[in-house]
């Protein structure tokens, strides 16, 4: 796709916009002119540019912040910018003037549609095909509702394509929606290495083999976000602007969490309440500081902007880490945060890595906030294009949003998709408005965040105790041979058998975590020899009957479950003991060891589960995991959250 540069003269302000290349015909010029308001005029260049270069040019024209520029100055800026990348040509500017009164009156009937479309796309970042899908989907929905009304009132006008096009022209001209290239060219002077996918922030793009039939060049496309539709150099990306109601509050004196929220309603434990209050006050402080800044005088604000331009605002300043141990009841603590932000009028995004968590949380949120518009997004979700004040989504869906939420809550940020993928952090950061807050929830924060905590740069709260106020079980170490050797010699070592016998005698459900999928079945078979009258099963990510097996395990039909790291998170089985084989393996890092250990003793009727690390060597990850668990227990005791029976007991640290 090609584009043209347009310069908008609004009398008090001038700015550059990227326009689609459809202004060749006179008729289309008329239609663009019909969108202009009374005193505005639009200058359109006659030069056709590729989308990436046009995008770069527009960004360059906008980055200038020193006051207002005249149209002549802008024209000069376009010329010099194009000259610097070797496109030197004379540019003619066509001036479009607003149409006469009578023509514009016919236009005003689209205004209703415009505001509707604006609501659907606000905070969205969509490819052109996705935008078409959205509009068609939403119009059908709306038409369905209208049709019901129409039968009663007797008049109903369907919305045609022409009206829609007019709406999108108006949105583009007045900056409510921005046209950009899906692949951003940071600097054309430095060559193609400076290309970046604007949706997933991948730098490593792939050059298409043959020439693209759309633009006639060798397109570059992004292979890491292919499943959301191909983002390529000639694909237009539409970014809707989100007008946050949060900014409109000038004073936050009467908007404290205490005023707006009845926190008792959520029935949290003391420890949970403490952590939630910390998070709420962080949100409040940040928003009220932003409000103070915006109410400053023009010159002081300009001064602030100047400073921010030269000094990147610290990305950590908008983040708050809620470090809660496994089984602390993180999900319950989300509710007050959501309620507070909704009471302020803001939009909330709740991102979790896994689809089953989304499906499980959705009905609970619907129940807790019955009058709120909630949208649940995951791969293949039917609510893809709906507008919601609260959006519950899997991680990859965040790529469809840009500056769309005042509060972003990221659950389990150390889990699979985030783990080792810096781009997704960027995606999550981009989904939030510049003034908004990100709240990170984790039981095992990644090491770089832990470092920031040590440096004192990241606001955080530690919640060191489970909701039932018993300490976390500290892992016990057993020295046994590797699983491979056990399978080869076809024997299970004596200490392991003894420990298993004891666990089974205590009526416990036993998790056995292995490193490799291939070993699970064989190991279960080997165990069955030693425990013939116990029901032992194996499962892994490649097992079709996984959900049934986990359910049977929960119902105590299966007593021992041999599995891999797929069950390390989000599974709650009462009265369970945990055995981690080959604990020194590289696959089991500190975070996953703590998570697996966190499967034990989660219910209040059997809070003292046992955790065993079975290994030959004493690896750093094991030491660190045990140290982390112990330090959490110590913290819980110091802060007095543990049950009285544990107070003064030295044992906790040494168990």
């Amino acid at each position, binding site marked *: 796709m090609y584009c043209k540069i347009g310069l908008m003269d609004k009398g008090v302000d001038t700015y550059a916009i990227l326009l689609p290349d459809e202004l060749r015909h006179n008729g289309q010029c008329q239609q663009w002119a019909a969108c202009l308001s009374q005193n505005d005029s639009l200058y359109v260049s006659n030069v056709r540019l590729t989308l990436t270069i046009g995008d770069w040019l527009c960004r360059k024209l906008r980055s200038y912040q020193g006051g207002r520029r005249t149209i002549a100055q802008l024209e000069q800026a376009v010329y010099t910018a194009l000259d610097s990348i070797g496109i030197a040509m004379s540019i003619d500017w066509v001036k479009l003037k607003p149409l006469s009164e009578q023509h514009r009156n016919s236009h005003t009937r689209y205004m209703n549609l415009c505001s509707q479309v604006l609501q659907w796309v606000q905070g969205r970042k969509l490819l052109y095909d996705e935008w078409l899908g959205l509009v068609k989907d939403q119009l059908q929905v709306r038409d369905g509702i209208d049709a019901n009304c129409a039968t009663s009132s007797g008049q109903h006008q369907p919305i045609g394509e022409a009206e829609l096009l007019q709406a999108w022209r108006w949105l583009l001209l007045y900056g409510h929606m921005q046209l950009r290239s899906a692949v951003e060219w940071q600097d054309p002077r430095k060559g193609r290495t400076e290309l970046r996918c604007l949706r997933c922030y991948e730098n490593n793009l792939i050059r298409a*083999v043959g020439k693209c*039939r*759309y633009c006639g060049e060798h397109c570059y*496309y992004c292979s890491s976000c*292919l499943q959301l539709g*191909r983002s*390529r150099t000639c694909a237009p990306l539409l970014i809707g602007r989100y007008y946050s109601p949060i900014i409109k509050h000038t004073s936050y004196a009467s908007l404290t969490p205490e005023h707006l929220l009845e926190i008792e309603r959520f029935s949290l434990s003391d420890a949970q309440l403490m952590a939630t209050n910390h998070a709420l006050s962080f949100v409040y402080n940040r928003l009220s500081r932003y409000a103070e800044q915006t109410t400053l005088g023009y010159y002081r604000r300009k001064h602030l902007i100047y400073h921010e331009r030269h000094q990147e605002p610290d990305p950590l300043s908008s983040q708050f880490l809620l470090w809660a141990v496994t089984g602390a009841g993180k999900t319950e603590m989300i509710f007050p945060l959501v309620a507070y932000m909704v009471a302020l009028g803001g939009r909330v995004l709740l991102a979790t890595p896994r689809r089953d968590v989304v499906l499980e949380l959705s009905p609970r949120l619907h129940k807790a906030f019955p009058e709120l518009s909630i949208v649940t997004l995951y791969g293949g979700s039917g609510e893809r294009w709906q507008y919601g004040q609260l959006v519950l989504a899997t991680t990859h869906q965040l790529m469809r949003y840009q500056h769309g939420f005042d509060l972003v809550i990221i659950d389990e940020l150390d889990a699979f998709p985030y783990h080792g993928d810096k781009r997704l952090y960027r995606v999550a950061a981009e989904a939030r408005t510049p003034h908004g807050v990100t709240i990170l929830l984790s039981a095992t924060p990644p090491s770089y965040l832990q470092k920031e905590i040590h440096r004192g740069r990241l606001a955080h709260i530690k919640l060191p105790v489970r909701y039932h106020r018993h300490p976390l079980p500290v892992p016990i170490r057993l020295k046994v041979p590797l699983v491979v050797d056990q399978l080869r010699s076809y024997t299970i070592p004596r200490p392991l058998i003894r420990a298993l016998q004891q666990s089974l005698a205590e009526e416990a459900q036993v998790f056995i975590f292995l490193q490799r999928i291939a070993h699970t079945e064989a190991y279960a078979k080997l165990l069955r020899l030693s425990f013939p009258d116990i029901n032992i099963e194996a499962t892994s990510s490649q097992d079709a009957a996984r959900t049934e097996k986990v359910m049977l395990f929960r119902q105590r039909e299966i007593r021992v479950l041999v599995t891999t790291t797929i069950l390390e998170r989000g599974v709650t089985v009462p009265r369970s003991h945990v055995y981690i084989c080959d604990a020194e393996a*590289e696959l089991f890092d500190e975070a996953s060891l703590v998570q697996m250990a966190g499967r034990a003793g989660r219910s209040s009727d059997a809070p003292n589960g046992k955790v065993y690390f079975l290994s030959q060597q004493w690896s750093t990850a094991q030491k660190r995991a045990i140290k982390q668990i112990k330090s959490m227990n110590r913290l819980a005791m110091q802060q007095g959250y543990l049950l009285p029976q544990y107070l003064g007991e030295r044992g906790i640290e040494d168990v």
Partner: protein
Amino acid sequence: MFNGGWRSLLNVLLPYSTPCIICSTPISAHPINDNSLPWLSQLKLEKDLCRQCIHEISWLDKVLCRRCGRSIRCPDCQHKLQSALWVNRSAVRYNEQMKQWLHRYKFQGDERLSILFGKMLLPAVEQVSLQLINRYGLEESWRKSRKLPTAWLQHSTTYGWDAVTAVPLSVQRLQERGFNQAERLASVISTHCFIPYYNLLSRTHHSLVRHSHQGRQARVMDSKEQYSGNIKQWHQWLNENGTAISKRETLNILIVDDVYTTGSTLNACAEALLRVSPLPLVVASVTWARS
């Protein structure tokens, strides 16, 4: 064992290779030696694919229907007595896994796969070439040469493939997708086997429903009259290879497509070619998958 510093030292000594195109796990550089498929190691798929993904490919190695290259004796071809398309061979069986691969290539638009899929097509091209050799009764002299069928045909002036072409897409779908998946495969074959590529077909109208959403009868009806010869390219072809073609009694053309389901598309294409050709034609086809 190898943590921290050791790991980085290892990375220097054993540099990281490109990840697998399909599952993006790192590839170990060992060549595959699978005795059941002796030609597999020649394709050098291990440059692009990891070992597991290579094993997942369901090669169509047993051909029981000599006409359409299916691995069962197919009733369709026994019913059909005469068709414009002479013979077809396919590379893989179209199962769930292969469906996902093709989906990624065709609908999600991962164009890197075109080179890989083109390479996977080469064994099928050899099979079709062998059929052509049999048709002309040249098996004896081919055997003596100890060459691959396509390479042998390439040196013979009187037989051999004259052109390779691809099933065209409608303009609208081409713009949607940005590339023609069959054309990309054909160009890979063209460079590997030294057969000139010409765009000999064009599409006359745009079918509104996707083929993959239609039944058999509807497909056959829909495919008819959808294709026509691209006269411009024909002229160019005949002009450029005038001397070679003037010696021929028949012209041999290879059509490339991604999937063969009922064969109606390829048949319609072959009919369209026959309609515009000045000489008798032998039209064979090669497809990536056979369902």
